[in-house]
C-alpha cells in the first residue's frame, strides 16, 4: 500500500520491473566472493586469540611454515604500524593484532596453503605466546573506578585526553533548560534500559580472493558494501599506494552495515604477495560471530517529562554505547537519533565505552534502535498514564520542517506527520485488538546521508544503454538506477543494463550505507542522463540540420517541429557520423539527504506461563520520499522490521567469564525464522525530498528503529509489564511476569 502526497507523474519510476540481476540469482549463477576461484589459488586460515585481552609476547610460525602445502604465513609484524591518529588505525589493528590481542577471536596470524584443510591445520600449529591481561567485558566493568584498561591504544574522541582510557567518546547535546522543563512537567517517567550486542546476521560470511602480481599490484574480488572503501582501507592497512590495488565487486550476500568495514582483504593481499599465488579467505560462521562487528551493547538512562495535555517538555538521557575493542561514534549517533519530537528542553549525554569484545560495526541505522527503545517506551508510558492515544500524543509533538534535530540543525521537509497519519488511518490500527493480545506503537527516524558517487551512462549502437555505477547492490539498487535512467532517457527499463563496476572502471563512489545508494548514486545517474540528453539533442540537431534550440527531448525522442521525431536508436545508429560514441559521466558529493521516518504497530500475545511472546499482526509505515521500485522499498521496510523483531525478542551476544562468545552459531544466535513471524504489512508514505530529482529519501535504515519499542509497548499492553532489558526472551519475560505477580 502506498500513501502519496500527490499523484505520481512518472512513467517508469514507481513501477515494479523484474530486477536485472534477478535471473542469475534464481538460477544459482550469481557469483558471490566465496564462489570465485582462480588458477593456482591457495586457501587461507586465521589464528585467533583465545584470550579476551592479552599481550602477545611472541609468535613462532616455523612449525606451521614447515607443514605440507603451506605457502605463506603472516603476523602483525608483516603489517606497518600506523600512527595512532591515522583514521584507519583501529581498522588496521582489528584486522591483525600487533602486540596486544583485544578480544577473544582477534586475528593474530594467518596462513595460506594448498587446501583449506592444510591451512587450518597449519594455523593450529602457529605457536603464540600470550601474557593474559585483565579484561573488561561490559559497560559497567569498563566504567568501574578500578577498571583495567581494555585497549592501551585507545584515546577518547572529542577530548584533549592523551592517556589511554576505557572511554571511546564523550558527547553532549542540549537545548533549553531541563530543570525548568521538568518543573513545568505534570508527569515525569524515568527508567534505565539495557541491550546486548547483536549481529547484523548477513547470511554470506565474509570472503575475498586476492591475486598479487609480480609487479606488486593486487586484484581483489570482494563482497562488500563499498569496494572503493575496501581499496582505501586495504591500502592504508598495508601502507600501499591506491594504484596498487584494484577491487572487483562480487555479489554481496547481505551487509546491513557490517560490510562497510573490512577484515580479510589486506591479509589476503599480503599472503598472496608472499606466496606469489592467488589466495582465498572465507570466514566460517563462527568467525563471523566471534570476530566481526556486532552492534553495540547499551545502557541508557532516560527521563521524560510532559504536561497533562500530552506536550513533551523535557528529555534528559545518559546513553552508554559499548564500541567493543576500539573507539567509534556509536554513542554519538545513538544520542543524535532522538530527534522525532519538538522537545524544547533536551540534555543528552552520549558516552562510548571500550571493552575486550569484538570491535562493533555499523548496523542499519547504527545506534538508533537502542535509543528509540528507551525514548519510545517512555512516551508510551506517558500516553498510558495520561490516557491518550499513542499516535495522537506523537502527532502533537512530532517535528515538522524547521523544527530542530537533537544536534540543533533544523529539519528539512520531512514526512513524520504523514507517516503517523498513515498508521492512524490504517486498517490494522482501526481493527479491534485480538482477544488476549496487546497492541504497541512506536516510531523511528534516521538521518540518511549523501556522500560521493559517480555514474557513467553509455548508449550502445542500437540505442540500448548501460548504466555503470560504483555502488554495490545489496537490496535491488541496480533496478532503481535503471528505473531512474529509464525515466530520464525515456527508454524502456529492460533496454537498460545496470552494472556495478570495479574501482578502475567507474569514478570514486562511497560505501552503500546510510541509505544513500538510491539517493546519491541515483542523482549521479540522473545527472549523467541529463548530460547525455543534451548531447542527444545536439546530435539530432546535426542529423536534421537545425539549431539545438529547436530540438526538444520528449518521452525518449528528439522532437523537432514539423519533422518526424528521432528515437535514441536512430541517433545512436548515426553516432559515428555525428561525433562518436554517446556517453556521459557524472560525479558528485551529494547534499540534501532527506531523513526518513517510520511508524510501526504490532499486536502481540504473551503466554503468561512461559513468557513466550507471539506477534499476531505487524504493520510498518515509512516515508520513502519517492519509491523508485516499490517492491524493494517494501522489502527494505519488511527486512528492517524483522531484524528489529529479532533484536527485540531473541538475539543477543552471550559471553562466558573469559570473554568467549558462547553462542557463536546460527543455532544459538537466534535470528527469526519464517515460522516466528506474521506477514509484515508495509505502507509506503511518499513525501518527496525536494533535494533529489525524484524525491528519494533512502529507505534502508529507518525500518529497524521502531520494532524494539513497538514490541515492548505491545507486551506492556498485553500483560502490564514494562520490559527494559533486551532481548525480551522467554526467560526475561517470565521473570518480569513473576515479579508483576509478586512471586
Amino acid at each position, binding site marked *: 500500500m502506498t500513501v502519496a502526497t500527490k499523484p505520481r507523474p512518472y512513467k517508469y519510476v514507481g513501477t515494479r520491473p523484474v530486477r536485472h540481476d534477478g535471473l542469475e540469482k534464481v538460477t544459482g549463477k550469481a557469483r558471490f566472493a566465496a564462489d570465485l576461484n582462480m588458477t593456482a589459488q591457495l586457501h587461507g586460515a586465521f589464528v585467533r586469540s583465545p584470550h579476551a585481552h592479552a599481550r602477545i609476547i611472541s609468535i613462532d610460525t616455523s612449525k606451521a611454515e614447515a607443514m605440507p602445502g603451506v605457502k605463506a604465513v603472516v603476523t602483525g609484524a608483516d603489517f606497518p604500524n600506523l600512527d595512532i591518529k591515522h583514521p584507519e588505525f583501529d581498522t588496521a589493528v582489528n584486522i591483525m593484532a600487533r602486540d596486544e590481542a583485544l578480544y577473544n577471536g582477534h586475528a593474530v596470524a594467518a596462513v595460506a596453503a594448498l587446501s583449506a584443510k592444510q591451512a587450518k591445520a597449519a594455523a593450529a600449529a602457529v605457536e603464540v605466546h600470550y601474557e593474559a591481561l585483565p579484561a573488561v567485558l561490559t559497560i559497567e566493568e569498563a566504567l568501574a573506578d578500578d577498571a583495567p584498561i581494555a585497549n592501551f591504544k585507545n584515546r577518547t574522541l572529542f577530548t584533549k585526553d592523551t592517556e589511554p582510557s576505557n572511554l571511546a567518546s564523550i558527547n553532549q547535546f542540549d537545548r533549553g533548560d531541563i530543570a525548568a522543563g521538568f518543573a513545568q512537567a505534570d508527569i515525569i517517567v524515568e527508567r534505565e534500559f539495557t541491550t546486548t550486542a547483536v549481529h547484523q546476521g548477513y547470511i554470506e560470511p565474509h570472503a575475498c580472493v586476492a591475486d598479487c602480481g609480480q609487479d606488486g599490484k593486487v586484484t581483489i574480488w570482494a563482497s562488500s558494501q563499498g569496494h572503493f572503501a575496501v581499496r582505501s582501507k586495504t591500502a592504508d592497512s598495508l601502507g600501499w599506494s591506491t594504484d596498487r590495488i584494484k577491487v572487483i565487486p562480487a555479489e554481496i550476500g547481505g551487509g546491513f552495515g557490517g560490510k562497510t568495514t573490512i577484515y580479510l582483504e589486506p591479509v589476503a593481499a599480503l599472503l598472496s604477495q608472499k606466496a606469489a599465488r592467488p589466495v582465498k579467505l572465507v570466514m*566460517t560462521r*563462527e568467525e563471523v560471530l566471534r570476530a566481526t562487528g556486532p552492534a553495540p551493547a547499551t545502557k541508557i538512562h532516560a527521563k521524560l517529562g510532559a504536561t497533562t495535555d500530552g506536550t513533551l517538555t523535557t528529555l534528559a538521557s545518559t546513553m552508554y554505547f559499548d564500541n567493543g575493542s576500539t573507539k567509534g561514534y556509536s554513542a554519538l549517533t545513538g544520542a543524535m537519533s532522538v530527534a522525532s519530537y519538538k522537545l524544547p528542553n533536551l540534555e543528552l549525554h552520549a558516552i562510548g565505552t571500550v571493552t575486550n569484545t569484538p570491535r562493533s560495526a555499523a548496523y542499519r541505522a547504527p545506534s538508533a534502535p537502542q535509543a528509540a527503545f528507551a525514548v519510545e517506551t517512555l512516551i508510551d508510558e506517558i500516553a498510558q498514564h495520561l490516557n491518550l492515544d499513542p499516535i495522537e500524543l506523537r502527532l502533537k509533538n512530532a517535528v515538522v520542517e524547521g523544527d530542530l534535530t537533537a544536534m540543533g540543525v533544523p529539519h528539512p521537509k520531512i514526512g513524520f506527520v504523514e507517516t503517523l497519519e498513515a498508521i492512524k488511518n490504517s486498517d490494522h490500527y482501526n481493527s479491534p485488538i485480538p482477544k488476549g493480545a496487546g497492541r504497541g506503537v512506536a516510531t523511528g527516524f534516521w538521518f540518511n546521508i549523501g556522500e560521493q558517487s559517480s555514474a557513467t551512462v553509455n548508449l550502445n549502437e542500437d540505442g540500448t544503454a548501460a548504466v555503470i555505477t560504483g555502488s554495490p547492490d545489496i537490496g535491488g539498487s541496480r533496478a532503481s538506477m535503471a528505473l531512474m535512467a529509464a525515466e530520464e532517457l525515456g527508454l524502456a527499463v529492460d533496454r537498460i543494463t545496470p552494472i556495478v563496476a570495479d574501482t578502475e572502471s567507474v569514478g570514486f563512489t562511497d560505501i552503500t550505507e546510510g541509505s544513500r545508494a538510491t539517493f546519491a548514486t541515483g542523482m549521479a545517474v540522473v545527472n549523467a542522463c541529463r548530460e547525455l540528453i543534451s548531447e542527444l539533442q545536439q546530435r539530432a540537431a546535426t542529423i536534421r540540420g537545425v539549431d539545438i534550440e529547436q530540438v526538444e527531448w520528449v518521452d525518449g525522442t528528439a522532437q523537432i517541429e514539423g519533422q518526424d521525431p528521432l528515437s535514441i536508436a536512430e541517433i545512436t545508429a548515426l553516432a559515428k557520423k555525428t561525433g562518436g560514441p554517446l556517453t556521459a559521466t557524472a560525479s558528485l558529493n551529494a547534499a540534501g539527504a532527506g531523513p526518513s521516518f517510520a511508524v510501526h504497530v504490532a499486536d502481540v500475545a504473551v503466554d503468561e*506461563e*512461559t*513468557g*513466550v511472546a507471539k506477534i499476531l499482526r505487524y504493520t510498518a509505515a515509512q516515508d520513502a520520499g519517492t519509491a523508485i521500485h516499490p517492491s524493494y522499498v517494501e522489502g527494505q521496510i519488511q527486512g528492517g522490521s524483522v531484524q528489529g523483531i529479532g533484536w527485540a*525478542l*531473541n538475539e543477543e551476544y*552471550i559471553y562466558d567469564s573469559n570473554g568467549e562468545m*558462547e*553462542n557463536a*552459531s*546460527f*543455532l*544459538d544466535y*537466534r535470528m*527469526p*525464522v519464517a*515460522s*516466528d513471524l506474521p506477514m509484515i504489512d508495509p505502507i509506503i508514505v511518499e513525501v518527496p525530498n525536494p533535494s533529489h530529482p525524484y524525491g528519494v529519501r533512502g529507505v534502508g535504515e529507518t525500518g529497524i528503529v521502531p520494532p524494539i519499542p513497538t514490541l515492548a509497548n505491545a507486551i506492556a499492553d498485553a500483560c502490564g509489564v514494562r520490559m527494559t532489558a533486551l532481548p525480551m*526472551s*522467554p*526467560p526475561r519475560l*517470565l*521473570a518480569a511476569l*513473576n515479579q508483576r505477580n509478586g512471586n
Partner: protein
Amino acid sequence: MKYLAPTTVDEALEVLRGDPTSQVFAGATDLIPQIRAGRPEPAVLIDLKRIKRLVGLNHNNAKWVVGAATPTSTITANEAFIAAFPGLTEASGLIGSDQIQNRSSWGGNLCNASPAADSVPALIANNAYVVVASNSGERTVKVADVVVAPGRTSLRADEFVVEFLLDDPPPHSADAYLRLIPRTEMDIAVVGAAAAVTLQGNQIAKARIVLGAVAPTFVRVHEAEAALTGQTINDNTLAAVAQAARCAANPIDDKRGTIEYRRQVAGVLAKRAVILAAQRAQGAS
C-alpha cells in the same frame, strides 16, 4: 578420516572391532557440527544408513520395530504410527528443520546423549526399548537406561543401536510431547516434557511423565505419575503434576535458559502435556 558404508550389521561390527575409535553415524546432523566445533575426528566413519535393517518401520503383532537410522521424516509420515503415538510423532517432528528431519534419526538423537534430545523423553514415556548389537551378540535395553550423562551412554565402544521396539499403546491411551524453545523452530529444547496416559473412564489408570533438558539426563517424574494415578484430571491433580515436575527438575544456567526458568516451565509443560495426552486418550479407542 575414512568413510565406510557397510550393508550389514555384521560388517559394521567388524569395522568397529578393528577400530573401537570408529564412529557410527546415521544423519550426522550432530556429528558434523561437533567435528567443526573441534571435537576430535574419528579415524573411521561408519555410515549405518546402507544397512537395510536399520532403516524403516515395521508393525507386527502389536509391536513396532523402527530401524535406528530411519529418518524421522519417514517415521512422522507413517499414518498408523501417527495414530498410535501422536506425542512421539510430535517429538520426532521437532528435531530440526525439514532438511534435518530427512537425516535425523532416533538412534542418533539417543546416542548423541544430549539431555535436550526431543524424541527421547517421548520414547521413554512410551516405554521403548532398543536392540543393541555387539560382537558378543544382541541385547535389549530400555531407552531410559541408555543415556547416563551429558554426551555419555551406557553402550560400550563396540556396540551400536540397531532398532527401537515399541508396544502398541493399550486401549484408551495416548501420549503428548511439548517443548519450549525461544523461536518456533531451529532450536534446542530449553525444556521438554512428554506424557503418556491410559484412561479408565474419567480416571488416569497409568501415566508416564518424562522431562528433557532440565537435568544431566532425562527425568522420569514418578511423583507426578503417582499424583495422577487413580485420579481425574482437575486443577488439583494438575497442580500436583506441575509441582512434582518443578521439584524433579535439576537444571543448569546456560546460554539457552536459566535454572529458574527451566524449573518453572518444566511444571507448565508437564501439566500441559498431561492435559493434551488425556484429551487424546479420551478420543482414542
